[in-house]
């Protein structure tokens, strides 16, 4: 399992138990531990601010928009960090176009084991003006989430920069919809729903690539580095080369019925033998 292509699924079909276990372990580690929740979420906004949002001018003066490739790389690193804690953990995507709000697995205050649900909130460090605490949300009504028609419109844009710009706007809309700590760059990655949201964004880029081409991106983007990740834009174009795939749909059979237990082995009964008969042959 460790070296196979992983399949990222919708949160409703994903192995939430493994993800919950991985997140709980990451969240229990201290902030300075480079395996911890706070350490990895801290790359995005506070305190490291490495995230890439909106076009930013590169060293050559060109306004690159590396929003999509940067976050694809970020999720890749994060998922492997989670798998170090539980190899069954897979990032799962939150399909907000269903307009039903935050998935139940990410909002229930406690998990099936009765412990606080590590998908419902995450630890945050002390920041200027606020003490260490867990993340909080203040979601809007579900009808105000992006609709399937919004996504269809964006997926129909054939130029990468145009598509990235409009998809990033839907992305911004969902951050604002969840609000609370998810609502601003500084704190959003500490909320576990951040990863499910960005998994959906990455998936939408993948769906767009299926339609318009995996390498459909301006050529001068290809060698741009995605600091601090040791990857370039070209490195992250093909998700299969990164070791994952997105499930289109999942249909599962019910689990097989348990086999009846075999009765204890005993010595086989001796086979019945027919007594030999002497046959007289007349000459």
């Amino acid at each position: 399992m460790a070296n196979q292509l992983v399949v990222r699924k919708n949160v409703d079909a994903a192995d939430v138990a493994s993800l919950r276990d991985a997140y709980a372990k990451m969240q229990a580690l201290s902030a300075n531990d480079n395996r911890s929740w706070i350490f990895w979420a801290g790359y995005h906004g506070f305190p490291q601010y490495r995230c890439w949002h909106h076009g930013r001018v590169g060293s050559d003066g060109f306004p690159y928009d590396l929003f999509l490739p940067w976050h694809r790389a970020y999720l890749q690193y994060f998922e492997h960090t989670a798998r170090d804690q539980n190899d069954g953990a897979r990032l799962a995507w939150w399909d907000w176009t269903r307009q039903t709000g935050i998935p139940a697995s990410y909002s229930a205050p406690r998990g099936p084991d009765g412990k606080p649900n590590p998908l419902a909130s995450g630890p945050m460090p002390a920041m200027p003006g606020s003490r260490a605490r867990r993340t909080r949300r203040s979601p809007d009504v579900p009808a105000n989430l992006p609709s399937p028609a919004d996504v269809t419109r964006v997926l129909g844009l054939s130029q990468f920069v145009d598509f990235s710009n409009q998809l990033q706007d839907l992305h911004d809309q969902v951050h604002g919809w969840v609000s609370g700590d998810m609502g601003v760059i500084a704190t959003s990655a500490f909320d576990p729903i951040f990863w499910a949201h960005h998994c959906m964004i990455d998936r939408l880029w993948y769906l767009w690539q299926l339609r318009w081409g995996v390498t459909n991106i301006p050529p001068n983007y290809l060698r741009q580095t995605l600091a601090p990740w040791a990857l370039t834009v070209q490195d992250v174009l093909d998700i299969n080369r990164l070791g994952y795939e997105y499930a289109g749909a999942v249909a599962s059979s019910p689990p097989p019925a348990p086999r009846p237990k075999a009765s204890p082995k005993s010595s086989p009964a001796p086979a019945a033998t027919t007594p030999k008969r002497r046959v007289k042959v007349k000459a």
Partner: protein
Amino acid sequence: MANNRYEAPVTIAADQLDTEFSRADIEFEGVDHSGASYEGRVFLNNPRADATTPLTPENGYAGTFHIFGHGGCFADDEEHCTVRPRRRYDPRPAHQLTPARKVVIATEAVRQALETGPAVTVKVVPVVRATTPKAGPEDVFSYERVSIVTYR
């Protein structure tokens, strides 16, 4: 919902635009995204639009952009959040707070607005979505330039 602040409407002389186009965008350049997160509702030829204005073509509603704000300056050191002019050959990524560019695809709204005359008034109504102790709902929206761009 927090109180909202409204930026003054801007009038654009649109007589240089094509009269026929397949797509029209409203582009905002130099948009500040350092503070609270908000939804920017764009209205054409409706300078009195506010947060209660219905989002319909009859009211000049052209579309919405969203700003995922940084939530304020979470640094105690001076000028941590100051964006300086970029030196040539500087290999580092640009400052995180480099102002953004936002594009609203508003083909039918622009077509409708141009039917009333060669000048188009653009009004943005910011509706705040998330604040922090460092970034409240005041003065969320500022920008350097707004343009209408048409494509054949």
